[in-house]
């Protein structure tokens, strides 16, 4: 059971890291005279400082579903993460600083597959780290305000009324990932989502759902950036 689940989860995460599973094209960014989203509206969705977050992660594929607990510790540019079975067994643990390659401290097969740790870190950065690249502000054709960050990839952050948001990433002109946040609440100056959904629609389409268990803004440590 667990091995099948792990295999499926690995497949999901590897798929998310190596393809453009959604066929939607990058929309044009339109000027939004006088009503551009303020940078702070987009920045507030990315935690800064020292945080510990845990989620119940559920995935659904055509071939089955599974559940694992994801643990994430953010401390400035440092990311530490782990995947734990519901029964408490650590399946995977790794850490990385900035854009450096992850250092894997525990990886039970098949989590030791090449590319898995990198793909997982890339997903974590997409959801929780402020996107690199040049920033532009405007709106989409439907009037939705958007902050667009253009670097190696393009990341659109779409703040919504009610304090939630969406993120869309594009490789070239094709959308690679869509993340929707629901039931958001402010913890300090950060908008924390009770539920995150990552949807990809590649031929082996999948949905990754993250239910927040806990989010704690921890006291600063020596490792914190100012």
């Amino acid at each position, binding site marked *: 059971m667990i091995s099948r689940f792990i295999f499926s989860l690995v497949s999901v995460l590897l798929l998310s890291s190596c393809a453009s599973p959604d066929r939607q094209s990058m929309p044009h960014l339109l000027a939004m005279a006088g009503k551009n989203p303020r940078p702070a509206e987009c920045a507030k969705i990315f935690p800064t400082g020292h945080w510990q977050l845990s989620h119940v992660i559920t995935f659904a594929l055509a071939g089955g579903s599974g*559940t694992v607990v994801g643990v994430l510790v953010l401390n400035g540019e440092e990311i*530490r993460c782990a995947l734990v079975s519901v029964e408490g067994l650590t399946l995977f643990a790794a850490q990385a600083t900035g854009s450096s390659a992850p250092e894997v401290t525990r990886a039970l097969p098949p989590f030791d597959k090449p590319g898995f740790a990198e793909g997982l870190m890339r997903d974590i950065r997409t959801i929780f780290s402020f996107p690199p690249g040049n920033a532009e502000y405007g709106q989409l054709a439907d009037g939705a305000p958007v902050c667009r960050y253009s670097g190696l990839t393009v990341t659109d952050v779409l703040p919504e009324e009610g304090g939630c948001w969406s993120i869309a990433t594009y490789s070239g002109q094709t959308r690679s990932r869509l993340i929707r946040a629901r039931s958001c609440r402010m913890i300090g100056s950060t908008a924390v989502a009770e539920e995150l959904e990552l949807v990809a629609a590649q031929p082996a389409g999948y949905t990754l759902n993250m239910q927040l268990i806990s989010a704690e803004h921890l006291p600063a440590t020596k490792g914190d950036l100012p």
Partner: protein
Amino acid sequence: MCRLLPLIVFALLAVALLGGPVVAESGIRSVQADFTQEKQMKILSRPLLSRGTLVFQAPQSLRWEYHTPLRSIMLLHNGRMAKMVERNGRFEKESRAGVSSMQIILEEISSWLEGRFTDNPMFVVDTSRERTVLLTPKEPGLQAIISRIELQRGEQDGVIDSVTIFEGADGWTKLTFSNTVLNQVIPATVFQEP
């Protein structure tokens, strides 16, 4: 190693169950208890906490249920195993475990319940300490995942207070049991899928 994973999870459950409220005392017919699961890892500033209940009916019926943070139920009954996870307010069945893994663990459970710790094929068992039973994996593959398991006996005969599963230097999981009730009649419906 992949084949080992289901076995490990069920081994942990078996150890927790056995070690849970019941120890190697013959004559145990049933066990009910609450448990708190504390998961600590080097990377964590605060531990992960889970809570649940377990119900055991001799010879081979088990309901291992987490209430928080995620409702899930593992059932062993009449030689069959099922695991369900609550999603959107209803329980959904997860993939079934291999029959061979389950049978091995059930044999483990039966063996331990009958007090045959030394017959255990998976662990070296050290009972030399007064209140601590120490289990060390025999197989190198399992040793890489679990370095040792400690069962702390309680004051009451036949009851264990806690089980700590060490994963090496970087983490451990501690199950602490409370409100243990022995040998009460348990309805068969407890072991049926919700």
